[in-house]
């Protein structure tokens, strides 16, 4: 039982680190990596519960998430490059074209 708790605690810590990173950092690549961190924290939770409940559904979800994350990485990095080409920076505070 303690084993499962350990996994879940690590997952929670990873998720919190990712969240704080998204909230506090300005560098868009760092924010991007933090999002990946959050996704993988969730993956870890899925796996843990899958084992715990003896049900494969969680693992299937993980595959989906990894696929989506890969696609997201491709799109996200492309956006960041385009952004850098225009603004010569990747600071997210510079992106406020949609401001009121």
């Amino acid at each position, binding site marked *: 039982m303690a084993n499962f708790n350990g996994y879940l605690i690590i997952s929670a810590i990873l998720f919190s680190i990712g*969240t704080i990173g*998204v*909230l*506090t950092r*300005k560098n868009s690549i760092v*924010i991007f990596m933090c999002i990946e961190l959050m996704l993988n924290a969730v993956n870890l939770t899925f796996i843990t519960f899958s084992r715990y409940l003896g049900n494969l559904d969680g693992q299937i979800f993980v595959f989906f998430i990894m696929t989506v994350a890969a696609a997201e990485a491709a799109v996200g990095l492309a956006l960041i490059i385009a952004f850098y080409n225009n603004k010569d920076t990747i600071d*997210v*505070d510079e*992106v*406020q*074209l*949609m*401001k*009121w």
Partner: protein
Amino acid sequence: MFDNVWLIPILPFIGFLINGLFGKKIKNETVIGTIAAGAVFGSFIVSCMTLYKLLSLGSEERLAEVKFFSWITSGTFNADVAFLIDPLSCIMIMIVSGVGFLIHLYSIAYMHGEEGFYRYFAYLNLFTFSMFLLVLGNNLLLMFVGWEGVGLCSYLLIGYYFHKKSAGDAGKKAFVMNRVGDFGFLLGLFTLFWYMGSTHNVWTITFSEMAKTSHLLPTGGVVTVITLCFFLGATGKSAQIPLYTWLPDAMEGPTPVSALIHAATMVTAGVYMIARMNYLFIRSPETLTVIAVIGACTALFAATIGTAQNDIKRVLAYSTVSQLGYMFLAMGVGAFGAGVFHLMTHAFFKACLFLGSGAVIHSMHGALHHAHSHDDAQDMRNMGGLKSKMPITFATFLLATIAIAGIPGFSGFFSKDEILWQAFSNPHHGSLNILLWGMGAIAAGLTAFYMFRLVFMTFFGECRITPKAKDHLHESPLVIVIPLIVLAGLSVVGGYIGIPKVIGEVLGGIPNYFEHYLDPVFKYSEEYMSVHGAHGGIHNIALEWGLMGTSVLIAIIGITVAYALYVSNTGIPVKFVAAFPALHRAVYNKWYIDELYDFMIVNPCKSFSQFLWKGFDVIVIDGAVNGVAKSVMALSGVFRLMQTGLLSNYAWSMAFGVVVMLSYFILK
């Protein structure tokens, strides 16, 4: 039997369509005038044939309904487009088509060179069509269509010279006042229909069926309400107190229009309506009293105003109001036949008078125009001495004036005297009868006075326009003179078809053809009165002769006074005015009735409308609509500040939201 009766209204309608749609292209006045007058002449021919056929039937069979198609059918309710042919409607179509044709003919010359010549004739034909619908319709709804149609045409023709503000205002006034009356007409219709349907399961508005079922109505009560509503409609259309003020203003229209619509035909629609539904009115003594009193008051009141007017057409307008008062007096005393008889004779002599005045105005206008004078062509103070310049107009005008004044031997005498005698002797109003007769007799004297005042001021004495203009005065062309002669002839002899009984007996037993002819129409009223009329009225031949003599004497006094004041001692009226300035001012200004109405009704209405516009509509309605939009704008002005465009802000608010939601679910 009456298969071709549909032609009567359709011919003028076709004329209206041709002139209304293509008149602007046709341009040729002769063609337009011929189409319009020809259409009405066709109606006149068919009307004559209809009358002839009707007369060939026995007196009891003189009622036919010609159905064309079902108009509205809903459950047990049914309204057809169908015509009712009976003695009353036949008289009306004869007047409308006969007098109407003469006036169309006259108009061709009178309106020569006017802008919108085709428009005038299109309206005139449309009017004739509507009037035929009104008098021929066999049910109240079809009558109402005609009733509204003539009101519309009246409005259009009063406002014919619409570039003049006064003409436009007069048209609006006529229309609005008529709307008040129409409202009464509709209320009466609804009340009658609802009452008969809900209490007796008789869902009908057809005149012949209403006559047969009228015995189901109890005397007084609901029938009083119904008939008073209908009478309100009649006061609007027929210019009675309290809704008469539009008619004098309606003189802004062309003079032939005044002759046709505002003297001979449309304004008598109210009288026709009451005569048509006599079986309802006879069942309500209260309504009859109201009608008689209003009729007598209008006759007297309008006559007093007529004595001080200087505009030739206005005198005739008040005279018309006054004569219509006589007709309503006749209706109110149950003398329906006498009222319709007066309607007919009045159509002859008043149309003649109006057309005569039109000829005078036309001639005056031309003369003043030649002399470059800006004097008013309608003001009698500018006229005088036209006798020698326009002999035929003068002769016809004089004959019609004698007829309206009630001199024995002329048509007006027979009809007016019959009304006065019935007012005195009828069994309906008890002691009120003497008052009614007295008012009628005084009004007759005033009528004789103001009509001869008009004749003396216009045709006698010295000509008061400049000599230069005087040379241009001339007799009117033939097309104008012929209708005058025909109408003057009818004004003289038209009365002999309805000689009152007492005179007829002296003359060797000549019956009152007109009254016998109309008997079938009023038989339900006769039956009702023979059962319910306990008093039976007064039958005293000596008294009748006496009253007749009195009314003739009063008329002769009126004429003598007019002669004394306006021919032999022309200084007296001026002195009289100087002696009683207040009285003269009051009469000259029509007893300030228009001002009173303005003060009591028009201005409060205007202020209230102003309040509704500026106060309610602008502030409340617009304020609410604009307020909603403004508050949304103000709120969004605040909330849009949340759109900072900064990623971290969005991320923080998202995280905050998640935390709030999670804590809610966990702590629940």
